């Protein structure tokens, strides 16, 4: 029995390290701490945004959460079931309920498969429908994303960028998923096409009550689409809060800087805009203490020694910072 009060996805202390080999004997010399101890829940029916700049680990996290990459340590529970304990067969069956929308619509479609084949593939793999019934289901899904069934047997290159992304979305709908991970679904698309896809995602969620994990580096889009937002920095989640709270009252210094860095159309940045110094660090063998410490305007001695814990400082608002307790 599904209890809607329980989260649909629970991530507990998830880590993913990529070893770096070196030396003559090719031993592991260091590691990329792509995801370094991440814990949070995703509630049924919500859209949780995951934001961060390059190297923060959001892409890796999205892959581990769907078990497309094996974790180094930690747990992910989907509807109470530990994903990493499942057998391959059980995991494959579960994939009907968890789907991914990819960033690059060109690359995510097999150029040699027709639209119908691509959208119908989940049905084929899991033996869900055949013949006429299969065709009907494909047509149904194709229409849901706003494409004409007339073009069902065309190849990806015959469609525009926005249409290709619709095909990618249609593919996820075919199996009636519950959780959708959208990895930067509109960043490869033209500006005027983005609105169509974003609206489509919202419409579909309204109709089917999906849960979205929405990954992006574009904070304006995330604010528009999400209910809650998690901010990642060098492998860790530094803040998690309902969207309004995050944007109006960011607690973590990095979040503050991130939000103030967004250029707003029609406005020049104010005098109090925060400009961070230095570059975004790579997650290779991070130093002890808070990851953000070297760039933080409020740095204190403790910040270089101890890693701050990720705690709930207000209702629903989590931060990992020594100064905000």
């Amino acid at each position, binding site marked *: 029995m599904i209890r809607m009060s329980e989260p649909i996805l629970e991530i507990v202390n998830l880590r993913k390290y990529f070893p770096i080999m070196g030396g003559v004997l090719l031993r592991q010399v260091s590691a990329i701490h792509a995801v370094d101890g991440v814990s949070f829940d995703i509630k049924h029916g919500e859209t949780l945004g995951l934001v961060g*700049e*390059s190297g923060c680990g959001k892409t890796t996290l999205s892959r581990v959460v769907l078990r497309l990459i094996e974790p180094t340590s930690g747990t992910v529970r989907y509807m109470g079931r530990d994903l990493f304990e499942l057998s391959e067969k059980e995991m494959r069956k579960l994939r009907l309920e968890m789907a991914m929308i990819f960033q690059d619509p060109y690359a995510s479609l097999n150029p040699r498969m027709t639209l119908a084949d691509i959208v119908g593939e989940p049905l084929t793999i899991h033996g869900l429908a055949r013949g006429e019934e299969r065709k009907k289901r494909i047509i149904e899904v194709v229409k849901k994303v706003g494409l004409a069934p007339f073009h069902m047997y065309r190849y990806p290159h015959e469609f*525009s960028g926005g249409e290709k992304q619709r095909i990618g979305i249609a593919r996820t709908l075919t199996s009636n998923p519950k959780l959708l991970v959208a990895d930067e679904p509109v960043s490869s698309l*033209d*500006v*005027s096409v*983005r*609105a*169509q896809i*974003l*609206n489509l995602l*919202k419409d579909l969620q309204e109709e089917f009550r999906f849960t979205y994990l929405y990954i992006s*580096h*574009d*904070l*304006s*889009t995330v*604010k*528009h*689409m999400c209910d809650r937002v998690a901010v990642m920095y060098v492998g860790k989640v530094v803040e998690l809060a309902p969207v309004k709270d995050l*944007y109006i009252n960011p607690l973590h210094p990095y979040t503050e*800087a*991130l*939000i*103030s*860095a*967004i*250029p*707003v*159309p*029609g*406005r*020049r*940045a104010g005098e109090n*805009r925060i*400009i*961070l110094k230095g*570059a*975004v660090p790579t997650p290779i063998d991070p130093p002890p203490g808070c990851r953000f410490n070297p760039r933080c305007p409020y740095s204190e001695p403790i910040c270089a020694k101890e890693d701050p814990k990720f705690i709930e400082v207000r209702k629903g608002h989590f931060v990992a910072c020594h100064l905000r307790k």
Partner: protein
Amino acid sequence: MTESLLRVNDLKTYFFTAEGVVKAVDNVNIEIKKEEVLGLVGESGCGKSTVALSVMRLVRDPGKIVGGEIWFNGEDLLKKGEGEMRKIRGAEISIIFQNPMSSLNPVFTVGSQIAEAIKLHQNVEKDKIKGKVAEILGKVGIPDPPKRMEDYPHEYSGGMAQRAMIAMALSCNPKLLIADEPTTNLDVTIQAQILELMKDLRKDFGASILLIGHDLGVISELSDKIAVMYAGKVVECSDLTGIFQKPMHPYTQALLESIPRLDVETDRLRIIPGRVPRLINPPSGCRFHSRCEHTMKVCTEKEPLLTEVGQDHMVACHLHTSDSKSSNRRR
């Protein structure tokens, strides 16, 4: 009134491909005054990058500038020979591109590439060149210039590489800097750094900037005036208030409502129906008419001309220009 530094009149750049003639830039008029920043905004394929390349006369086969004039500092660049253009490029007009990593030669040190620009255009004694390079690297905020000068591009981060590009572009004190999507590939916090840098440098160097991009927020940060391009034409041109608070062209209005914004709350974004037309056979009349809510008969037949409709506010739209006004073309 400040005089113009750059004035592009009726520029036409077409690409002669096997499939047909792509009218990438079709009768574009823009003007940049001294020490002014003009933002050229539009979606991919609208022709904004082609305008930049045309001004630099860097358009390659199968593209050709087939008409118009480009007045820079009182001279028509389209009448100049390649030798003269080479003296202008890098010295009077510089350009920086979207991806700094691909614009920097990976087998030479960053310092030597900047030195090359200085050597080509300025009479600086050999022993003083290194000093100049270090000086300009410092100005763009690269820490420890004497050391970083000797590094290779791959040893620079994205933000630093873009700073190095800016340094190279400004090394000879150009009058006009063309920046084509300079921050598109950068992380948000790095983008903020680069935009701040460009603002400071603008004050220090007194150059005019032609800033090209598709992100209205980024363009707003630096620009004094904004020109909106669509399908090879300029459809609207005004200052920040004009564009963002009183947009007149239906495309500009729709564009502003179709992007998610930090300052505006909407449930569903506005959609611009249809697609950007192919520039091989552009539609007759106004190129936006098939997607416009306010299309009238004249829109399908006659092309609207860019006309002044307010204080420093130009639009190319039949809604705002009657026949008598359209003869009032920009001089």
